[in-house]
């Protein structure tokens, strides 16, 4: 550990060069709330830490053609305190608010929550439901991908060597749209999701659901987009029957593990319950928003 170097580049280009040219292991350091713990536990011992918080585009929340672009190193508290963002994306905020304590959220970033690739990461199902697009920069240039393609399994991502997530772009909001994220945990605060569910939906003026996205966390090796669950809502008034079909589709898409936090059977049942309740909250928010 005493050999470990630290760099705080102020441009994306410099960060990419550092990350791709280091011979040994280099790690991006955002809030460090996952990384420092993994280092302390001896699970990783990087040769170089690249602190990205000094790069302006990584730490700003911008509005671009009416869409929010959130820098990957924006912290949870920064986002929660951004009132206009919180009004547009209450479901994303639901997820961010659940990331540890106030202290943890003062450091934890969206990019870190995503790239740490925990299947239980709380902001990720909400971002998937939102239809977020991730901007990535690397030695071969930039690319954009859907947020659900980043994590591939616990602690594993689809990022190539030298690639950094720079920002997360959320789509434009329209009238009658709403989103929500809910998780089940044994404690109300400071716990890891047993199951999480994110729902984003849009109604038309008659109250029929025109568009929907549903995502589940902690029920598979990564957060899942569940199109069958969204299909159960589209074209309906999101009535009891539609919500029951949504819950059934959520259960069917889940492939959870058994562990000390919950049994497989319990997770399957709760996946349906969380999706159902998140959809009801999203619906309520969509009705209020015109």
């Amino acid at each position, binding site marked *: *550990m*005493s*050999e*470990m*170097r*630290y760099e*705080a580049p102020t441009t994306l280009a410099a960060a990419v060069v550092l990350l791709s040219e280091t011979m040994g292991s280099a790690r991006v*350091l955002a*809030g*460090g*709330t996952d990384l*420092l*713990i993994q*280092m*302390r536990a001896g699970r990783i011992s990087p040769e170089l*830490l690249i*602190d990205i*918080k000094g790069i302006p585009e990584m730490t700003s929340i911008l509005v671009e053609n009416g869409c929010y672009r959130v820098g990957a190193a924006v*912290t949870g*508290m920064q986002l929660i305190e951004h009132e206009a963002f919180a009004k547009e994306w209450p479901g994303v905020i639901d997820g961010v608010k659940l990331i*540890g*304590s*106030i*202290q*943890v959220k*003062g*450091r934890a970033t969206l990019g870190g929550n995503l790239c740490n690739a925990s299947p239980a990461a709380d902001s990720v199902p909400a971002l998937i439901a939102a239809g977020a697009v991730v901007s990535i920069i690397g030695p071969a240039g930039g690319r954009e991908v859907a947020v659900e393609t980043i994590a591939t399994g616990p602690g594993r991502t689809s990022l190539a060597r030298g690639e950094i997530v720079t920002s997360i772009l959320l789509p434009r909001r329209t009238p009658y749209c709403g989103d929500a994220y809910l998780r089940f945990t044994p404690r109300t*605060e*400071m716990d890891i999701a047993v199951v999480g569910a994110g729902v984003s939906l849009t109604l038309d003026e008659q109250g029929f659901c025109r568009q929907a996205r549903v995502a589940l966390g902690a029920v598979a090796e990564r957060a899942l987009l569940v199109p069958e669950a969204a299909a159960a809502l589209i074209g309906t008034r999101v009535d009891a029957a539609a919500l029951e079909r949504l819950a059934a589709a959520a259960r069917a898409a889940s492939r959870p593990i058994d562990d000390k936090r919950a049994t497989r059977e319990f997770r399957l049942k709760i996946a349906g319950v969380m999706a159902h309740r998140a959809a009801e909250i999203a619906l309520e928010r969509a009705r209020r928003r015109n």
Partner: protein
Amino acid sequence: MARHQVTATVNGDAVEFLCETGETLLEVLRDELNLTGTKEGCGTGDCGACSVTVDGRLVCSCLVLGVEAEGRSIETIEGMAVGADLHVLQRKFLEHDALQCGICMSGILIASRSLLERNPDPTESEVRFWLAGNLCRCTGYHKIVEAVLDAAREMRGA
């Protein structure tokens, strides 16, 4: 090469220290700067005993690297009382017997001050949510919450 020279402000005073990349801000405060009021409970962000503010932002100093303090302003428990004058929160914690062993206390005081700076009139549940990252194994929290609410009342002049 891996040893960094860092310049920061701690409780209003300019400080300079040397640290390794892997050293946390908590280690720097306690072992380099002899500010041992900030405690280590877990070292993993779970207990909040190490709470400080960095540029006004409440964080766990066990999850911040010393080198990240470069150019920043850090506030610890040592800066809370002015000379012999306790901060209202400190006084109220004493009045309400809101501490027993005291290991959690500096973190809870720093976190409570940070809450009252943002929200001078919090509800009981707002206090409980804000302090959810500060564990206390002695008091059962009730007296802590009472002390924070009472301090808020006094600070508002109500």
